[in-house]
Protein backbone atom coordinates (compact mmCIF):
# COMPACT_ATOMS: atom_id res chain seq x y z
CA UNK A 1 0.00 0.00 0.00
CA UNK A 2 1.36 3.36 -0.93
CA UNK A 3 1.36 6.18 1.58
CA UNK A 4 -1.95 7.41 2.85
CA UNK A 5 -3.57 10.31 1.10
CA UNK A 6 -3.98 13.33 3.35
CA UNK A 7 -7.68 13.49 2.65
CA UNK A 8 -8.02 9.86 3.70
CA UNK A 9 -6.11 10.56 6.88
CA UNK A 10 -8.46 13.39 7.77
CA UNK A 11 -11.49 11.31 6.85
CA UNK A 12 -10.19 8.57 9.13
CA UNK A 13 -9.64 11.09 11.89
CA UNK A 14 -13.15 12.36 11.45
CA UNK A 15 -14.57 8.87 11.59
CA UNK A 16 -15.80 9.16 8.05
CA UNK A 17 -14.47 5.96 6.53
CA UNK A 18 -16.07 2.56 6.60
CA UNK A 19 -14.78 -0.41 8.54
CA UNK A 20 -12.79 -2.14 5.79
CA UNK A 21 -11.05 1.07 4.87
CA UNK A 22 -10.37 1.82 8.49
CA UNK A 23 -8.78 -1.57 8.87
CA UNK A 24 -6.56 -0.83 5.91
CA UNK A 25 -5.61 2.55 7.30
CA UNK A 26 -4.85 1.12 10.71
CA UNK A 27 -2.75 -1.62 9.22
CA UNK A 28 -0.82 0.89 7.22
CA UNK A 29 -0.30 3.20 10.16
CA UNK A 30 1.00 0.31 12.18
CA UNK A 31 3.71 -0.36 9.65
CA UNK A 32 4.52 3.08 8.30
CA UNK A 33 6.15 5.57 10.67
CA UNK A 34 5.99 8.30 8.06
CA UNK A 35 2.25 8.04 7.74
CA UNK A 36 1.86 7.74 11.46
CA UNK A 37 3.71 10.99 11.82
CA UNK A 38 1.44 12.53 9.22
CA UNK A 39 -1.53 11.16 11.04
CA UNK A 40 -0.40 12.78 14.27
CA UNK A 41 0.28 15.96 12.41
CA UNK A 42 -3.21 15.83 10.95
CA UNK A 43 -4.64 15.48 14.44
CA UNK A 44 -2.81 18.64 15.35
CA UNK A 45 -4.11 20.53 12.35
CA UNK A 46 -7.62 19.33 12.87
CA UNK A 47 -7.69 20.24 16.54
CA UNK A 48 -5.99 23.58 16.10
CA UNK A 49 -8.23 24.54 13.20
CA UNK A 50 -11.27 23.65 15.20
CA UNK A 51 -9.97 25.63 18.15
CA UNK A 52 -9.43 28.64 15.92
CA UNK A 53 -12.95 28.46 14.55
CA UNK A 54 -14.46 28.12 17.98
CA UNK A 55 -12.38 30.99 19.27
CA UNK A 56 -14.33 33.26 16.96
CA UNK A 57 -17.36 32.98 19.16
CA UNK A 58 -18.18 35.85 21.44
CA UNK A 59 -17.16 35.74 25.05
CA UNK A 60 -19.79 35.66 27.69
CA UNK A 61 -18.63 37.67 30.63
CA UNK A 62 -18.42 35.79 33.89
CA UNK A 63 -20.36 38.52 35.60
CA UNK A 64 -23.34 37.52 33.54
CA UNK A 65 -23.54 34.21 35.20
CA UNK A 66 -23.43 35.60 38.65
CA UNK A 67 -25.97 38.25 37.84
CA UNK A 68 -28.27 35.65 36.43
CA UNK A 69 -29.16 34.31 39.81
CA UNK A 70 -29.05 35.62 43.32
CA UNK A 71 -26.17 34.89 45.57
CA UNK A 72 -26.83 31.51 47.04
CA UNK A 73 -27.17 31.20 50.74
CA UNK A 74 -25.22 28.44 52.34
CA UNK A 75 -28.32 26.31 52.60
CA UNK A 76 -28.99 26.55 48.91
CA UNK A 77 -25.73 24.85 48.11
CA UNK A 78 -27.34 21.53 48.72
CA UNK A 79 -29.55 21.70 45.71
CA UNK A 80 -28.55 21.81 42.10
CA UNK A 81 -28.11 25.27 40.77
CA UNK A 82 -29.38 26.36 37.39
CA UNK A 83 -26.90 26.03 34.61
CA UNK A 84 -24.71 29.09 34.49
CA UNK A 85 -24.50 31.43 31.57
CA UNK A 86 -26.63 29.38 29.27
CA UNK A 87 -29.67 31.57 29.36
CA UNK A 88 -31.13 29.98 26.26
CA UNK A 89 -30.52 26.30 26.70
CA UNK A 90 -30.75 25.30 23.11
CA UNK A 91 -28.26 27.65 21.74
CA UNK A 92 -25.12 27.81 23.77
CA UNK A 93 -23.24 29.87 21.30
CA UNK A 94 -22.48 32.82 23.51
CA UNK A 95 -20.35 30.41 25.43
CA UNK A 96 -16.84 30.78 24.26
CA UNK A 97 -14.74 27.79 24.88
CA UNK A 98 -11.81 28.78 26.92
CA UNK A 99 -9.90 25.79 25.77
CA UNK A 100 -10.27 27.07 22.27
CA UNK A 101 -8.58 30.23 23.38
CA UNK A 102 -5.81 28.15 24.77
CA UNK A 103 -5.47 26.30 21.55
CA UNK A 104 -5.13 29.63 19.86
CA UNK A 105 -2.53 30.57 22.39
CA UNK A 106 -0.81 27.29 21.76
CA UNK A 107 -0.45 28.18 18.12
CA UNK A 108 0.95 31.54 19.03
CA UNK A 109 3.15 30.30 21.77
CA UNK A 110 5.26 28.23 19.54
CA UNK A 111 3.47 25.03 18.94
CA UNK A 112 4.98 23.85 15.72
CA UNK A 113 3.46 20.88 14.06
CA UNK A 114 6.23 20.47 11.60
CA UNK A 115 8.94 20.36 14.19
CA UNK A 116 7.60 17.49 16.19
CA UNK A 117 4.95 15.74 14.25
CA UNK A 118 5.13 12.57 16.22
CA UNK A 119 4.23 14.34 19.41
CA UNK A 120 1.41 16.38 18.02
CA UNK A 121 -1.28 14.20 19.44
CA UNK A 122 0.13 14.12 22.89
CA UNK A 123 1.01 17.79 23.03
CA UNK A 124 -2.40 18.87 21.99
CA UNK A 125 -4.07 18.96 25.18
CA UNK A 126 -7.28 17.52 24.28
CA UNK A 127 -8.05 14.09 23.28
CA UNK A 128 -9.81 14.07 20.02
CA UNK A 129 -12.96 12.80 21.61
CA UNK A 130 -13.26 16.06 23.46
CA UNK A 131 -13.15 17.99 20.28
CA UNK A 132 -15.61 15.68 18.69
CA UNK A 133 -18.01 16.20 21.49
CA UNK A 134 -19.09 19.64 20.48
CA UNK A 135 -18.36 23.27 20.61
CA UNK A 136 -18.51 23.99 24.21
CA UNK A 137 -16.47 21.70 26.26
CA UNK A 138 -13.55 19.38 26.09
CA UNK A 139 -15.33 17.17 28.55
CA UNK A 140 -17.14 14.80 26.31
CA UNK A 141 -19.08 13.02 28.91
CA UNK A 142 -20.50 15.85 30.89
CA UNK A 143 -24.09 14.86 31.37
CA UNK A 144 -25.63 18.27 31.82
CA UNK A 145 -24.08 19.66 28.71
CA UNK A 146 -24.83 16.64 26.67
CA UNK A 147 -28.41 16.79 27.75
CA UNK A 148 -28.82 20.38 26.71
CA UNK A 149 -26.95 20.16 23.46
CA UNK A 150 -28.82 21.07 20.38
CA UNK A 151 -28.40 18.29 17.87
CA UNK A 152 -27.79 20.91 15.28
CA UNK A 153 -24.98 22.43 17.23
CA UNK A 154 -23.35 19.37 18.59
CA UNK A 155 -19.99 18.51 17.25
CA UNK A 156 -19.34 15.69 14.86
CA UNK A 157 -20.56 12.58 16.53
CA UNK A 158 -17.89 10.24 17.71
CA UNK A 159 -15.56 11.38 15.07
CA UNK A 160 -12.48 10.40 16.89
CA UNK A 161 -13.79 7.39 18.62
CA UNK A 162 -13.50 5.40 15.48
CA UNK A 163 -10.23 6.87 14.42
CA UNK A 164 -7.30 4.55 14.44
CA UNK A 165 -4.86 5.06 17.20
CA UNK A 166 -1.43 5.83 16.09
CA UNK A 167 0.47 5.12 19.23
CA UNK A 168 0.04 2.75 22.10
CA UNK A 169 -0.19 5.68 24.47
CA UNK A 170 -2.90 7.19 22.42
CA UNK A 171 -4.77 3.94 22.20
CA UNK A 172 -4.53 3.60 25.90
CA UNK A 173 -5.79 7.11 26.44
CA UNK A 174 -8.69 6.58 24.13
CA UNK A 175 -9.56 3.29 25.67
CA UNK A 176 -9.68 4.93 29.05
CA UNK A 177 -11.80 7.72 27.73
CA UNK A 178 -14.21 5.27 26.22
CA UNK A 179 -14.29 3.36 29.45
CA UNK A 180 -15.11 6.50 31.34
CA UNK A 181 -17.84 7.35 28.91
CA UNK A 182 -19.51 4.04 29.32
CA UNK A 183 -19.27 4.15 33.04
CA UNK A 184 -22.73 4.80 34.39
CA UNK A 185 -21.36 6.22 37.59
CA UNK A 186 -20.74 9.96 37.76
CA UNK A 187 -17.18 9.22 37.06
CA UNK A 188 -15.80 12.61 36.21
CA UNK A 189 -15.87 14.28 39.52
CA UNK A 190 -12.19 14.99 39.32
CA UNK A 191 -12.36 17.52 41.97
CA UNK A 192 -10.48 18.75 44.86
CA UNK A 193 -13.00 19.86 47.32
CA UNK A 194 -13.24 21.42 50.69
CA UNK A 195 -14.31 19.25 53.51
CA UNK A 196 -17.86 19.79 54.58
CA UNK A 197 -17.26 22.49 57.06
CA UNK A 198 -17.86 26.17 56.99
CA UNK A 199 -15.53 28.22 54.88
CA UNK A 200 -14.08 31.34 56.35
CA UNK A 201 -15.74 34.06 54.39
CA UNK A 202 -14.94 35.89 52.27
CA UNK A 203 -12.29 33.50 51.10
CA UNK A 204 -13.27 30.63 49.01
CA UNK A 205 -11.99 27.45 47.65
CA UNK A 206 -14.28 26.02 45.09
CA UNK A 207 -14.72 22.46 44.11
CA UNK A 208 -15.86 21.54 40.68
CA UNK A 209 -19.20 20.37 41.80
CA UNK A 210 -20.87 20.89 38.47
CA UNK A 211 -24.52 20.77 39.32
CA UNK A 212 -23.92 19.77 42.84
CA UNK A 213 -22.92 21.92 45.68
CA UNK A 214 -19.40 22.20 46.82
CA UNK A 215 -20.32 20.27 49.89
CA UNK A 216 -21.67 17.45 47.83
CA UNK A 217 -18.61 17.57 45.64
CA UNK A 218 -16.45 17.35 48.69
CA UNK A 219 -18.34 14.30 49.71
CA UNK A 220 -17.81 12.72 46.33
CA UNK A 221 -14.11 13.37 46.50
CA UNK A 222 -13.78 11.96 49.91
CA UNK A 223 -15.83 8.96 48.98
CA UNK A 224 -13.66 8.47 46.02
CA UNK A 225 -10.67 8.60 48.20
CA UNK A 226 -12.08 5.75 50.15
CA UNK A 227 -13.05 3.86 47.05
CA UNK A 228 -9.63 4.33 45.62
CA UNK A 229 -8.04 3.09 48.72
CA UNK A 230 -10.23 0.06 48.66
CA UNK A 231 -9.95 -0.66 45.01
CA UNK A 232 -6.58 0.48 43.91
CA UNK A 233 -4.53 1.03 46.99
CA UNK A 234 -3.74 4.41 45.64
CA UNK A 235 -4.51 6.44 48.67
CA UNK A 236 -2.40 6.89 51.67
CA UNK A 237 -3.90 5.51 54.83
CA UNK A 238 -4.02 8.98 56.31
CA UNK A 239 -6.12 10.43 53.57
CA UNK A 240 -8.40 7.47 53.40
CA UNK A 241 -8.85 7.43 57.12
CA UNK A 242 -9.81 11.05 57.05
CA UNK A 243 -12.29 10.34 54.35
CA UNK A 244 -13.61 7.36 56.21
CA UNK A 245 -13.96 9.27 59.39
CA UNK A 246 -15.71 12.11 57.73
CA UNK A 247 -18.05 10.32 55.46
CA UNK A 248 -18.16 6.66 56.14
CA UNK A 249 -18.15 3.93 53.60
CA UNK A 250 -18.33 4.66 49.95
CA UNK A 251 -18.29 1.19 48.57
CA UNK A 252 -19.34 0.88 45.01
CA UNK A 253 -18.26 4.33 43.97
CA UNK A 254 -16.09 4.12 40.95
CA UNK A 255 -14.96 7.68 40.74
CA UNK A 256 -11.29 8.13 40.88
CA UNK A 257 -9.42 11.02 42.25
CA UNK A 258 -6.07 11.13 43.81
CA UNK A 259 -6.14 10.02 47.35
CA UNK A 260 -2.82 11.08 48.60
CA UNK A 261 -1.59 13.04 51.51
CA UNK A 262 -3.12 16.40 52.15
CA UNK A 263 -1.34 19.28 50.55
CA UNK A 264 0.32 21.87 52.69
CA UNK A 265 -1.53 24.90 53.83
CA UNK A 266 -1.36 28.30 52.31
CA UNK A 267 1.29 29.69 54.50
CA UNK A 268 3.64 26.89 53.75
CA UNK A 269 3.32 27.30 50.09
CA UNK A 270 3.73 31.00 50.23
CA UNK A 271 4.32 33.05 47.15
CA UNK A 272 3.22 36.54 46.37
CA UNK A 273 0.37 35.63 44.18
CA UNK A 274 -1.23 33.53 46.86
CA UNK A 275 -1.58 36.38 49.27
CA UNK A 276 -5.17 36.86 50.11
CA UNK A 277 -6.10 33.43 48.94
CA UNK A 278 -7.50 30.91 51.25
CA UNK A 279 -5.39 27.89 51.82
CA UNK A 280 -6.49 26.77 55.18
CA UNK A 281 -8.72 23.99 54.07
CA UNK A 282 -7.70 20.44 53.98
CA UNK A 283 -6.90 19.23 50.55
CA UNK A 284 -7.71 15.61 50.11
CA UNK A 285 -5.96 14.99 46.91
CA UNK A 286 -2.88 17.10 46.51
CA UNK A 287 0.26 15.53 45.13
CA UNK A 288 1.86 13.48 47.82
CA UNK A 289 5.40 14.49 47.19
CA UNK A 290 4.70 18.15 47.11
CA UNK A 291 7.24 20.09 49.04
CA UNK A 292 6.99 23.84 48.93
CA UNK A 293 10.56 24.33 49.97
CA UNK A 294 12.02 22.98 46.79
CA UNK A 295 9.31 23.71 44.32
CA UNK A 296 9.60 27.04 42.61
CA UNK A 297 6.81 28.55 40.71
CA UNK A 298 7.61 29.57 37.20
CA UNK A 299 5.66 30.79 34.25
CA UNK A 300 5.30 28.32 31.43
CA UNK A 301 3.62 28.24 28.07
CA UNK A 302 0.19 26.81 27.48
CA UNK A 303 1.74 23.94 25.61
CA UNK A 304 4.14 23.21 28.42
CA UNK A 305 1.26 23.29 30.87
CA UNK A 306 -0.62 20.79 28.80
CA UNK A 307 2.42 18.59 28.49
CA UNK A 308 3.06 18.77 32.23
CA UNK A 309 -0.43 17.48 32.85
CA UNK A 310 0.03 14.57 30.53
CA UNK A 311 -1.77 15.94 27.51
CA UNK A 312 -4.81 17.52 29.03
CA UNK A 313 -5.81 20.62 30.89
CA UNK A 314 -8.77 22.12 32.62
CA UNK A 315 -9.87 25.65 31.99
CA UNK A 316 -12.67 27.90 33.06
CA UNK A 317 -15.22 28.18 30.34
CA UNK A 318 -15.58 31.76 29.24
CA UNK A 319 -12.40 33.14 30.76
CA UNK A 320 -9.13 33.70 29.00
CA UNK A 321 -6.07 32.58 30.89
CA UNK A 322 -3.62 35.34 31.72
CA UNK A 323 -0.74 32.95 32.27
CA UNK A 324 0.21 29.42 33.06
CA UNK A 325 2.50 28.49 35.89
CA UNK A 326 4.21 25.38 37.00
CA UNK A 327 5.03 24.57 40.58
CA UNK A 328 6.28 21.09 41.10
CA UNK A 329 3.55 18.77 39.96
CA UNK A 330 0.95 21.48 40.03
CA UNK A 331 0.03 23.51 37.03
CA UNK A 332 -1.66 26.79 37.75
CA UNK A 333 -3.85 28.54 35.24
CA UNK A 334 -4.13 32.13 36.33
CA UNK A 335 -6.99 34.36 35.31
CA UNK A 336 -7.27 38.04 35.94
CA UNK A 337 -10.40 39.23 37.58
CA UNK A 338 -11.44 42.51 39.09
CA UNK A 339 -10.91 40.99 42.49
CA UNK A 340 -7.44 39.69 41.89
CA UNK A 341 -5.98 36.52 40.44
CA UNK A 342 -8.27 33.56 40.07
CA UNK A 343 -6.21 30.41 40.02
CA UNK A 344 -7.17 27.00 38.73
CA UNK A 345 -4.66 24.58 40.13
CA UNK A 346 -4.50 21.14 38.69
CA UNK A 347 -2.39 18.09 38.76
CA UNK A 348 -2.34 14.63 37.41
CA UNK A 349 -4.07 12.14 39.65
CA UNK A 350 -3.63 8.75 38.20
CA UNK A 351 -5.56 8.70 34.99
CA UNK A 352 -7.42 11.84 35.77
CA UNK A 353 -6.87 15.48 36.36
CA UNK A 354 -7.59 16.77 39.81
CA UNK A 355 -8.17 20.45 40.15
CA UNK A 356 -8.89 23.09 42.65
CA UNK A 357 -10.10 26.60 42.14
CA UNK A 358 -8.65 29.25 44.37
CA UNK A 359 -10.64 32.43 44.28
CA UNK A 360 -9.36 35.86 45.20
CA UNK A 361 -10.32 37.66 48.32
CA UNK A 362 -13.48 39.64 48.01
CA UNK A 363 -14.92 37.77 45.07
CA UNK A 364 -18.67 37.37 45.55
CA UNK A 365 -19.79 33.92 46.51
CA UNK A 366 -22.02 33.56 43.50
CA UNK A 367 -19.21 34.49 41.13
CA UNK A 368 -17.00 31.93 42.77
CA UNK A 369 -19.63 29.31 42.44
CA UNK A 370 -20.21 30.21 38.82
CA UNK A 371 -16.49 29.95 38.09
CA UNK A 372 -16.38 26.61 39.79
CA UNK A 373 -19.20 25.30 37.69
CA UNK A 374 -17.52 26.36 34.52
CA UNK A 375 -14.35 24.42 34.96
CA UNK A 376 -14.07 22.17 31.97
Amino acid at each position, binding site marked *: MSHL*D*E*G*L*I*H*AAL*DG*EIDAPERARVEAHLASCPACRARYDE*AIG*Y*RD*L*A*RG*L*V*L*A*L*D*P*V*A*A*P*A*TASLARPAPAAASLSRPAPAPVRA*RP*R*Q*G*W*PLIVAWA*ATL*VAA*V*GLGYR*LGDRPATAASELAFDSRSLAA*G*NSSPVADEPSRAASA*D*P*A*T*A*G*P*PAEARSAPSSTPARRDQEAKAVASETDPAPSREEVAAPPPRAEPAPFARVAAGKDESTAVAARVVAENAVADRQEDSMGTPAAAQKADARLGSAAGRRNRVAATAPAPMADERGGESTRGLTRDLLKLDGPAAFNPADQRRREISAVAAIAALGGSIRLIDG*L*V*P*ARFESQGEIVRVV*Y*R*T*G*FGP*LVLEQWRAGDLLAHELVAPTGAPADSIQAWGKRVR
Partner: protein
Amino acid sequence: MSEFVAELYAQYKDALERMLYRRTGDRERAEELTQEVFSRAVAAPPRNPRPWLFAVALNLLREEGRKATRHGRRLELYRGEQPTTAPGPDDLFDRDERVAQIRQALETLTDRDREALLLQAEGFNYDEIAQTLGLARGAIGTTLARARRRLVDAYRAREGTRHVAS
Protein backbone atom coordinates in the same frame (compact mmCIF):
# COMPACT_ATOMS: atom_id res chain seq x y z
CA MET B 1 -44.84 31.01 9.57
CA SER B 2 -45.91 27.45 9.23
CA GLU B 3 -45.49 25.10 12.09
CA PHE B 4 -42.85 23.24 10.17
CA VAL B 5 -40.75 26.34 9.62
CA ALA B 6 -41.33 27.38 13.21
CA GLU B 7 -39.83 24.10 14.28
CA LEU B 8 -36.91 24.61 11.96
CA TYR B 9 -36.44 28.06 13.37
CA ALA B 10 -36.35 26.76 16.91
CA GLN B 11 -33.95 24.03 15.95
CA TYR B 12 -31.52 25.76 13.62
CA LYS B 13 -31.65 29.48 14.26
CA ASP B 14 -28.83 29.52 16.75
CA ALA B 15 -26.62 27.24 14.73
CA LEU B 16 -27.11 29.40 11.67
CA GLU B 17 -26.43 32.59 13.55
CA ARG B 18 -23.35 31.10 15.06
CA MET B 19 -21.94 29.98 11.76
CA LEU B 20 -22.72 33.32 10.16
CA TYR B 21 -21.18 35.14 13.06
CA ARG B 22 -18.04 33.08 12.80
CA ARG B 23 -17.90 33.92 9.16
CA THR B 24 -18.63 37.63 9.38
CA GLY B 25 -17.80 38.71 12.90
CA ASP B 26 -20.92 40.81 12.82
CA ARG B 27 -23.73 39.68 15.02
CA GLU B 28 -26.31 41.97 13.50
CA ARG B 29 -25.57 40.74 10.02
CA ALA B 30 -25.63 37.19 11.23
CA GLU B 31 -29.08 37.74 12.67
CA GLU B 32 -30.33 39.51 9.56
CA LEU B 33 -29.05 36.82 7.27
CA THR B 34 -30.60 34.17 9.46
CA GLN B 35 -33.95 35.91 9.21
CA GLU B 36 -33.55 36.01 5.46
CA VAL B 37 -32.79 32.30 5.36
CA PHE B 38 -35.97 31.51 7.23
CA SER B 39 -38.05 33.87 5.14
CA ARG B 40 -36.94 31.82 2.15
CA ALA B 41 -37.78 28.65 3.98
CA VAL B 42 -41.30 29.97 4.48
CA ALA B 43 -41.60 30.60 0.76
CA ALA B 44 -40.28 27.17 -0.17
CA PRO B 45 -40.15 24.74 2.74
CA PRO B 46 -37.15 22.47 2.28
CA ARG B 47 -37.29 18.70 2.32
CA ASN B 48 -33.88 18.22 3.78
CA PRO B 49 -33.74 21.24 6.01
CA ARG B 50 -30.32 21.32 7.60
CA PRO B 51 -28.17 21.26 4.46
CA TRP B 52 -30.70 23.45 2.73
CA LEU B 53 -30.72 26.13 5.41
CA PHE B 54 -26.96 26.29 5.63
CA ALA B 55 -26.55 26.26 1.89
CA VAL B 56 -28.92 29.21 1.60
CA ALA B 57 -27.07 31.04 4.34
CA LEU B 58 -23.74 30.50 2.63
CA ASN B 59 -25.19 31.55 -0.71
CA LEU B 60 -26.49 34.72 0.84
CA LEU B 61 -23.07 35.44 2.23
CA ARG B 62 -21.42 34.90 -1.11
CA GLU B 63 -24.03 37.00 -2.82
CA GLU B 64 -23.53 39.76 -0.35
CA GLY B 65 -19.79 39.58 -0.83
CA ARG B 66 -20.13 39.88 -4.57
CA LYS B 67 -22.46 42.85 -4.28
CA ALA B 68 -20.12 44.52 -1.90
CA THR B 69 -17.25 44.07 -4.28
CA ARG B 70 -19.27 45.43 -7.18
CA HIS B 71 -20.23 48.52 -5.29
CA GLY B 72 -16.76 49.02 -4.02
CA ARG B 73 -18.04 48.87 -0.52
CA ARG B 74 -15.63 47.61 1.97
CA LEU B 75 -17.07 44.97 4.17
CA GLU B 76 -16.07 45.26 7.72
CA LEU B 77 -15.12 41.68 7.89
CA TYR B 78 -12.47 42.19 10.46
CA ARG B 79 -14.41 44.27 12.83
CA GLY B 80 -14.26 42.61 16.16
CA GLU B 81 -17.70 42.79 17.59
CA GLN B 82 -18.06 43.17 21.28
CA PRO B 83 -20.06 40.47 22.94
CA THR B 84 -23.58 41.48 23.81
CA THR B 85 -22.85 40.80 27.41
CA ALA B 86 -20.71 43.31 29.17
CA PRO B 87 -17.07 42.32 29.10
CA GLY B 88 -15.89 41.02 32.39
CA PRO B 89 -12.87 42.28 34.21
CA ASP B 90 -10.99 39.15 33.27
CA ASP B 91 -11.40 39.73 29.58
CA LEU B 92 -8.10 41.50 29.50
CA PHE B 93 -6.21 39.42 27.04
CA ASP B 94 -5.76 40.78 23.58
CA ARG B 95 -8.63 38.70 22.44
CA ASP B 96 -9.94 41.10 19.86
CA GLU B 97 -6.62 41.11 18.13
CA ARG B 98 -6.49 37.35 18.11
CA VAL B 99 -9.99 37.09 16.77
CA ALA B 100 -9.14 39.55 14.02
CA GLN B 101 -6.11 37.46 13.14
CA ILE B 102 -8.15 34.28 13.03
CA ARG B 103 -10.68 36.00 10.85
CA GLN B 104 -7.97 37.25 8.54
CA ALA B 105 -6.53 33.78 8.39
CA LEU B 106 -9.98 32.44 7.56
CA GLU B 107 -10.25 34.93 4.75
CA THR B 108 -7.19 33.44 3.07
CA LEU B 109 -9.10 30.22 2.44
CA THR B 110 -11.20 29.63 -0.62
CA ASP B 111 -14.94 29.85 -0.15
CA ARG B 112 -15.27 26.12 -0.42
CA ASP B 113 -12.56 25.32 2.09
CA ARG B 114 -13.80 27.90 4.55
CA GLU B 115 -17.38 26.77 4.30
CA ALA B 116 -16.45 23.13 4.75
CA LEU B 117 -14.59 24.08 7.88
CA LEU B 118 -17.45 26.12 9.27
CA LEU B 119 -19.98 23.43 8.52
CA GLN B 120 -17.82 20.81 10.13
CA ALA B 121 -17.53 22.96 13.21
CA GLU B 122 -21.32 22.91 13.28
CA GLY B 123 -21.29 19.15 13.45
CA PHE B 124 -21.96 18.38 9.83
CA ASN B 125 -20.72 15.01 8.70
CA TYR B 126 -19.10 14.51 5.33
CA ASP B 127 -22.37 13.58 3.64
CA GLU B 128 -24.03 16.73 4.89
CA ILE B 129 -21.09 18.92 3.96
CA ALA B 130 -21.05 17.41 0.49
CA GLN B 131 -24.75 17.94 0.13
CA THR B 132 -24.63 21.52 1.37
CA LEU B 133 -21.71 22.56 -0.78
CA GLY B 134 -22.59 20.48 -3.80
CA LEU B 135 -19.37 18.51 -3.66
CA ALA B 136 -18.59 14.84 -3.99
CA ARG B 137 -18.36 13.11 -0.67
CA GLY B 138 -14.96 11.77 -1.56
CA ALA B 139 -13.62 15.29 -1.86
CA ILE B 140 -14.52 16.37 1.66
CA GLY B 141 -11.54 14.81 3.40
CA THR B 142 -9.13 16.54 1.06
CA THR B 143 -11.05 19.78 1.31
CA LEU B 144 -10.97 19.74 5.08
CA ALA B 145 -7.34 18.69 5.19
CA ARG B 146 -6.39 21.64 3.02
CA ALA B 147 -8.65 24.03 4.88
CA ARG B 148 -7.29 23.08 8.27
CA ARG B 149 -3.71 23.31 7.18
CA ARG B 150 -4.19 26.67 5.51
CA LEU B 151 -6.08 28.15 8.40
CA VAL B 152 -3.54 27.09 10.98
CA ASP B 153 -0.57 28.09 8.86
CA ALA B 154 -2.10 31.44 7.98
CA TYR B 155 -2.92 32.16 11.58
CA ARG B 156 0.53 31.13 12.69
CA ALA B 157 2.13 33.39 10.11
CA ARG B 158 0.13 36.33 11.44
CA GLU B 159 0.86 35.48 14.99
CA GLY B 160 4.56 35.29 14.17
CA THR B 161 4.41 38.67 12.50
CA ARG B 162 2.71 40.16 15.48
CA HIS B 163 5.37 38.87 17.82
CA VAL B 164 8.14 40.19 15.64
CA ALA B 165 6.44 43.55 15.43
CA SER B 166 5.90 43.82 19.15
